[in-house]
């Protein structure tokens, strides 16, 4: 470290790597966030990539970004705007103008800012910074492409191969800027490319040369040291939401002693769940890629009937295809976990962008009176607990559970403390041969436990409990087909009551912030981090505000009404046009609800939230 560069301490910083979708920005971003987490920072990441695998090079719609926020505290989300932008081409600069602060540092690859590159990004002048009105940012040109090429001369690589390592040269610069030791990055690269030692060598060389280049020219007047987090001792790894979901399912399978079964079909942004579970044959997981979404859920229903912890994973359009089969699971009262990693809709919508628009579909998207459990994960790491809860509720209450996550938390990652599995509650299904007290010949499949209203689970292979279930309404006592009016009303009521009573087993809704405030912020699912930070900022400005965030949506926590009625003003903030607000209104009369809705396919912007919430507080 050159002595004449000043080191400045920062509590937190947001960095965005941006380039063509083939430039390796996701890898640079992932490596930087992982090594920062290992270094002791809290992290929150936001991969923002296009649906096209390789859009035409240098164009605006081919830009792929990876934002990471690191720091000691208050890292609840991936940050509004970037302190540092790495732009590998003019298009990457242009699409990120709204993601920059006034004094952001922009490190750009000057080799890719020639006039032909500017044309591709639809610039009309040869000064992109002036054209974009970015006079206040600190623009730092670095000939990243040519420097990478000279760095890798003599390693027996062709031109194309050498250029591919420019993301590592860029990462080296960022590592210098934030005083990250390269050893950890080297190790991560060795793991990542374990089977390609040549690539490891080249990438480490480019990374090191990038670091040294920045150091030698004293690229900026100051480098930065990010405070490390002081919290929670223990062992950590980093997970994104999809991986945490997978781990939650595996943990639940282990706890319940059941085989884990996944029936699925590839769909963005849920496919990683299929990928990860397909790898986990060591845990005996049977993960099947089926011919379509319907076969995905259908095989899962079959597996559930056969006694497995059965799961299907999808996104909004896939959930639509599954709805008829999901209703079969409602009617047959079989345990099933349905994971919907929400993306922007309707129809194909924006597959790689995130929103919370499937709530109505999850709650209501079926024929008939079809009550169901809906859970929404609140952060990448909370996907673990949510998937565990979803499995526990499905198995113990004989019901399908829809677990809503979203593209933002599914792909975003955070450091995750290895959980102590002894602290997680047992999972005990209501097996007929264990819990049913009567004689087997008197039993019928819709007999219920009196307290929980849960029917008994008789798994094929169990002698004396052969039975038939199905989509047709059955007599509550005999289990035989029935169109008796009173019986149907009774069964409709029983299915509803069974779901309602699950609330008795759920954690109560917590209120954060000023419990005695007039205004309550209400959110649900993946917006937790943004809303929490907005609440803290509002309190920082000396105003009183309370915040309640829902993890459990159907049924709602038992104290929901009591909490909501305490506040004069409730602002429900969600990434849809007001679905949760309408749901609350449909259950509780007379609440004074304000709505904050954004459906842009992008995460909330905390500063906007603060502004809008204060307006409501001051009303």
């Amino acid at each position: 470290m050159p002595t004449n560069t000043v080191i400045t301490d920062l509590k937190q910083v947001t960095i965005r790597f941006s380039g063509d979708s083939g430039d390796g920005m996701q890898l640079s971003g992932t490596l930087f966030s992982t090594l920062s987490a290992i270094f002791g920072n809290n992290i929150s990441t936001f991969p923002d990539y296009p649906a096209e695998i390789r859009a035409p090079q240098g164009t605006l719609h081919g830009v792929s970004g990876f934002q990471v926020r690191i720091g000691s505290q208050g890292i609840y989300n991936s940050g509004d705007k970037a302190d540092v932008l790495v732009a590998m081409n003019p298009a990457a600069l242009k699409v990120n103008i709204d993601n920059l602060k006034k004094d952001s540092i922009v490190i750009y690859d000057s080799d890719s800012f020639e006039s032909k590159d500017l044309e591709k990004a639809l610039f009309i002048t040869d000064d992109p910074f002036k054209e974009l009105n970015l006079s206040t940012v600190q623009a730092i040109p670095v000939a990243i492409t040519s420097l990478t090429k000279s760095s890798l001369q003599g390693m027996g690589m062709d031109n194309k191969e050498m250029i591919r390592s420019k993301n590592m040269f860029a990462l080296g610069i960022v590592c210098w800027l934030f005083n990250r030791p390269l050893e950890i990055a080297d190790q991560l690269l060795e793991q990542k490319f374990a089977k390609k030692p040549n690539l490891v060598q080249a990438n480490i060389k480019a990374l090191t040369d990038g670091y040294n280049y920045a150091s030698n020219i004293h690229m900026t007047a100051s480098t930065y040291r990010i405070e490390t987090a002081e919290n929670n001792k223990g062992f950590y790894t980093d997970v994104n939401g999809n991986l945490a979901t997978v781990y939650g399912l595996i943990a639940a399978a282990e706890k319940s002693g059941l085989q884990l079964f996944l029936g699925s079909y590839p769909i963005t942004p849920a496919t990683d769940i299929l990928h990860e579970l397909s790898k986990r044959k060591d845990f005996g997981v049977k993960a099947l890629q089926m011919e379509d979404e319907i076969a995905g859920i259908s095989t899962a229903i079959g597996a559930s009937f056969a006694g497995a912890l059965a799961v299907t994973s999808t996104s909004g359009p896939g959930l639509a295809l599954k709805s008829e089969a999901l209703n079969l699971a409602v009617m047959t009262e079989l345990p099933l976990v349905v994971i919907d990693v929400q993306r922007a809709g309707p129809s194909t919508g924006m597959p790689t962008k995130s929103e919370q628009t499937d709530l109505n579909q999850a709650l209501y998207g079926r024929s008939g009176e079809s009550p169901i459990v809906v859970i929404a994960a609140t952060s990448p790491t909370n996907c673990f607990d949510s998937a565990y809860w979803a499995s526990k509720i499905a198995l113990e209450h004989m019901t399908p559970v829809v677990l809503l996550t979203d593209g933002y938390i599914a792909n975003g990652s955070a450091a995750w403390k290895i959980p102590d599995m002894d602290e997680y509650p047992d999972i005990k299904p209501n097996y007929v041969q264990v819990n049913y007290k009567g004689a087997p010949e008197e039993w019928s499949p819709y007999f219920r436990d009196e307290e929980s209203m849960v029917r008994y689970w008789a798994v094929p292979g169990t002698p004396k409990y052969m039975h038939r279930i199905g989509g047709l309404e059955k007599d509550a006592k005999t289990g035989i087909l029935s169109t008796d009016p009173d019986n149907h009303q009774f069964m409709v009521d029983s299915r509803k009551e069974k779901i309602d009573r699950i609330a008795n087993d759920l954690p109560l809704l917590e209120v954060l912030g000023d419990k005695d405030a007039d205004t309550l912020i209400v959110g649900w699912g993946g917006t937790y981090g943004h809303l929490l930070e907005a609440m803290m900022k509002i309190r920082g400005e000396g105003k009183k505000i309370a915040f309640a965030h829902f993890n459990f949506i159907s049924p709602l926590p038992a104290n929901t009404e009591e909490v909501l009625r305490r506040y004069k003003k409730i602002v429900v903030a969600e990434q849809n046009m007001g679905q949760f607000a309408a749901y609350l209104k449909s259950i509780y009369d007379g609440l004074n609800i304000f709505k904050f809705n954004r459906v842009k396919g992008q995460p909330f912007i905390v500063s906007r939230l603060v502004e809008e919430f204060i307006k409501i507080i001051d009303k």
Partner: protein
Amino acid sequence: MEQDITIQERQPKDYKSINAVRWCPGCGDHAILNCLYKAMAELNIEQENTVLISGIGCSSRLVYYMNTYGMHTIHGRPIAIATGVKVANPNLSVWVATGDGDSLSIGGNHFIHAIRRNVNINIILFNNKIYGLTKGQYSPTSDRGFVSKSSPYGTVEDPFHPAELCFGARGTFFARSIDVDLKNQTDLMVESAKHKGTSVLEVLQNCVIFNNGIYKKYSEKEFRDDKTIFLKHGEKMIFGKDNNKGLVLDGWNLKAVTIGEDGYSMDDVLVHDAASLDNTLQMKLALMGTDSDDLPLALGVIRNVTAPVYDEEVEKQITEVQEKLPKKSFTEFLMSSSNLWEKK
């Protein structure tokens, strides 16, 4: 769980449930159900280890009449659901009762893919060439020009032949029976169950209300011997009331001849090879009698070959991986992650 270890001979009635059978009087489904009771008794399979899955349609009510585990599911999906049952627990004997509407129309995708995967399930395909439960619309197996409530001027589309779909999806077992042919039908169900992989048994089933008599020319005693041929693996392809007719090759095509006439002797008659991996001849046999009446309709096991079984392969992969890796708890797995660090 206590297991019954004494070997008991099960009777057909042991597979009957308490539910009253509600098909129309005279429906071919009654015969199919009775054959299934007999076949299961002959196989002597435990009721608790047997699972019947059905979709929607008249055929699919069968599940309710079985004293086994069963699920009457939704339209078109029974084969996918049965795949889940079998893969989750390969020890179960898994059967599907389905129809031409259920599995060749709305569920066509699952039909071909289960066959392609060769999941070890037994599909009984009730083919009555009509939608019965919705009261008489044409089905994907109805002949071109068929007049029904939804085709008052006749259909303008060609039908599927189940065998073609099965062979097109590289099926490993295909057999055909006629509902009223009780003895052979029971035997074919037993053969289907013994086959490892997806077995398709197409049952030509009479709908007495909406499509009565469509198989009469094959099923009536006076025509049956001349209009059908019951194929047996390794045996000569002979048929006819007097067993004097046979199938021979005529160039690339099959031809029905009378033995002793036109210079044809028994030596010219083909021998049925259900186990041949090449399905060309089996396909020709399966399509006989469907588009013209010059050749007899083939009954019996037309194809029965050995191939890797999906549910077994799924388990095998797991076993292979587990044999290579030491058994770990979930926590041990996380703690051995290459991406782990300690905050002190």
